[in-house]
């Protein structure tokens, strides 16, 4: 289907170059944008940027505008510099709601989303998603891509050989782990080294545990600092994580002991699964890209993922995830048109089609799962669209930078290398900015 389209407010008037073409239906309302260009700044770089650019083709063809895409590995810091330096891009894909908030509040240069975008978001996303793009009750940014973080990677082949089953409850999972340990395999492998972002993997662990142990509501309070960071409920969640990550029997399959988690690059952390030295690896859907070429990522192949089970039925099926939000720093018609386009189901499906190798999903309900090519993406999309799923965005990405991009990572890293639970949480609490 193709619904949506943009509201009238996004039209530049004139006759769209796409007028009359079938595939441009729904885009013609943007008017004639020939010769206009929109600059887009993102953290999505090669090789994944290729599919991005591909997915803009339709827009460019139909409106005549051109999209200038720039991806950078230094995106977060650079965006801030550019915005403060007065050289902001037209549009930026911001992966952290927390950063969006800072930009809105500190620089005042983010412009509100046009009404068409809001309508689209209301239509294709849940309320929670809209909330992440809203600051001080104003809606700024629509979600773009998304990923599921509550995944555990495993080797279907290895499971079959050993007669193991994919666990559906936390307890099952722990029993399975002990089984594995009994067989002489360290069940879990993990790695949190990520250069200057070292530690983010553990924050995901804690967030997943929070969702499962104390539920989404407390999770939200925690994220918004309505309860202190070192609340006893958080401590209990951390203990749950510790029962896996800080137990020498459980980790670190194929790599070393607990401490080796701290120095193992998250990219290589799951690889021991291929060698049969490790059974389980909790990591987001995008880890699919890490498997060496030739690895079959299917339900009965070399590796695949299952949903990280919950500890109780109480809070439904919490799903931790991440994604980007489309923030605009200009309100020129072409910018608004593009912004609107990105919030449509049209784009979501275009993007899905442009990504034949897989590795991209959206929480856009208009996304036709059939358009997704890879089994893991399908699994992700199904997870998002599962009516039972309770989605929560990555907590550290929503916290202020001082916590979410600094002390949370650092302290969790220190925690891995031996710091106790209370100190860890206490230190993070202390670092929460006062203003």
């Amino acid at each position, binding site marked *: 289907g193709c619904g949506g389209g943009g509201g009238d407010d996004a039209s530049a008037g004139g006759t769209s170059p796409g007028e009359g073409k079938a595939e441009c239906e729904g885009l013609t309302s943007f008017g004639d944008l020939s010769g206009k260009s929109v600059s887009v700044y993102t953290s999505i770089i090669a090789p994944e940027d290729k599919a991005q650019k591909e997915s803009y083709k339709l827009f460019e063809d139909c409106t005549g505008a051109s999209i200038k895409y720039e991806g950078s590995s230094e995106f977060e810091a650079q965006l801030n510099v550019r915005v403060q*330096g007065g050289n902001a891009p037209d549009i930026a894909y911001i992966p952290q709601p927390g950063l969006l908030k800072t930009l809105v509040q500190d620089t005042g240069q983010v412009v509100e989303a046009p009404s068409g975008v809001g309508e689209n978001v209301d239509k294709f996303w849940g309320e929670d998603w809209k909330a992440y793009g809203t600051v001080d009750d104003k809606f700024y940014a629509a979600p773009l891509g998304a990923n599921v973080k509550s995944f555990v990677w495993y080797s279907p082949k290895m499971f079959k050989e050993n007669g193991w089953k994919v666990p559906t409850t936390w307890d099952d999972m722990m029993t399975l782990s002990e089984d594995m340990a009994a067989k002489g395999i360290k069940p879990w492998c993990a790695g949190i080294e990520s250069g200057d972002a070292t530690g983010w993997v553990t924050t995901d662990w804690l967030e997943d545990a929070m969702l499962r142990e104390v539920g989404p509501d407390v999770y939200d309070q925690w994220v918004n600092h309505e309860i202190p960071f070192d609340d006893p409920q958080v401590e209990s969640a951390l203990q749950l994580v510790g029962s896996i990550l800080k137990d020498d029997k459980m980790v670190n399959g194929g790599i070393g002991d607990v401490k080796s988690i701290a120095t193992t690059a998250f990219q290589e952390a799951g690889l021991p699964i291929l060698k049969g030295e490790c059974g389980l690896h909790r990591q987001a859907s995008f880890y699919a890209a890490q498997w060496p070429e030739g690895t079959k990522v299917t339900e009965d192949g070399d590796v695949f993922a299952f949903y990280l089970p919950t500890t109780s039925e109480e809070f439904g099926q919490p799903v931790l995830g991440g994604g980007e939000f489309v923030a605009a720093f200009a309100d020129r018609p072409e910018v608004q048109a593009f912004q609107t386009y990105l919030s449509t189901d049209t784009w979501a499906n275009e993007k899905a089609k442009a990504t034949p190798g897989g590795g991209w999903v959206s929480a856009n309900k208009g996304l036709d799962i059939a358009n997704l090519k890879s089994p893991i993406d399908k699994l992700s999309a199904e997870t998002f669209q599962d009516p039972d799923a309770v989605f929560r965005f990555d907590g550290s990405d929503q916290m202020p930078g001082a916590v979410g991009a600094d002390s949370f990572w650092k302290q969790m890293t220190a925690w891995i290398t031996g710091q106790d639970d209370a100190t860890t949480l206490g230190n993070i609490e202390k670092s929460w900015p006062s203003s």
Partner: protein
Amino acid sequence: MTTSTPTIAPAQIEPPTGPPKSAAAAAHGGLTSRIGSAVALVIAVLWTIPTFGLLVSSFRPEGEVKTNGWWNAFTNPSFTFDNYKSVITGSDVDLATYFVNSFVITIPSVLIPISLATLAAYAFAWMDFKGRHLLFVAVFALQIVPIQVTMIPLLKLYVNPPFGLPQLAGANAVGGGFWTVWLSHSIFALPLAIYLMHNFMREIPGELIESARVDGAGHVQIFTRIMLPLLTPAIAAFGIFQFLWVWNDLLVALVFAGGNLDVSPLTVRLAALAGQRGEDWHLLSAGAFVSLVVPLIVFLAGQRYFVRGLLAGSVKG
């Protein structure tokens, strides 16, 4: 006078053996003793092994790179050019374009600061004016300012220049964004360059400058005709460093090219090679060597300016 005396060459003199081929090092043993060579060798090996590992890795298939050490390549060799192929071809922008950008960025960013710095250094070293020591110290101390500190203020200036100057960065930048990059690199290089040049200049015997002044040369001529030739080694050394700093710079290009992909240097491409999540080491290692080629050539070419005894024969004492 009729003192045109024929040379009395003793009869037994054997015919001259012909001119020696090269400067002989025999009389200049230096420190080239056995222990010395051994120490040098150890340092050289220690310094090279890490890079060598990278070189080997750049020829290994992705799976191997990620799962076992590069030295295993010798016991069970499996080599491939795929990494280089993907580095050279694997992007929608031509690698050559990035090379061109890097060159266009680097050349003025080396020439401009060197010229300005040698001039300023000359003034600080050999011209007499009030407050010259103070100014020199101030300039030299500015080396400490990290680029990050300057990014936002400078960018603001470029985007909204005072006095109605044309906008240098941003969408309507003149020169498409190169100018700000050149300017910024020059600014960042100046303190160190002035400091280095000043110190090398002070080493030149004052008598040479005096004699040029008596010969009627003004500061400009002394600078161009005496200082520059005698400073070649220093200029070459700094030139090489500035070249490779600019060549390998990512930050300045990212900030001041201001989102203009048209002018992105090779490093931007290289950073992108790291992959979305920094996982593509096999590509990175190949990329590192692709971008290493040019600085290496510059270094090798620059070496011939590191000459010995430039001042020999000039003064006695």
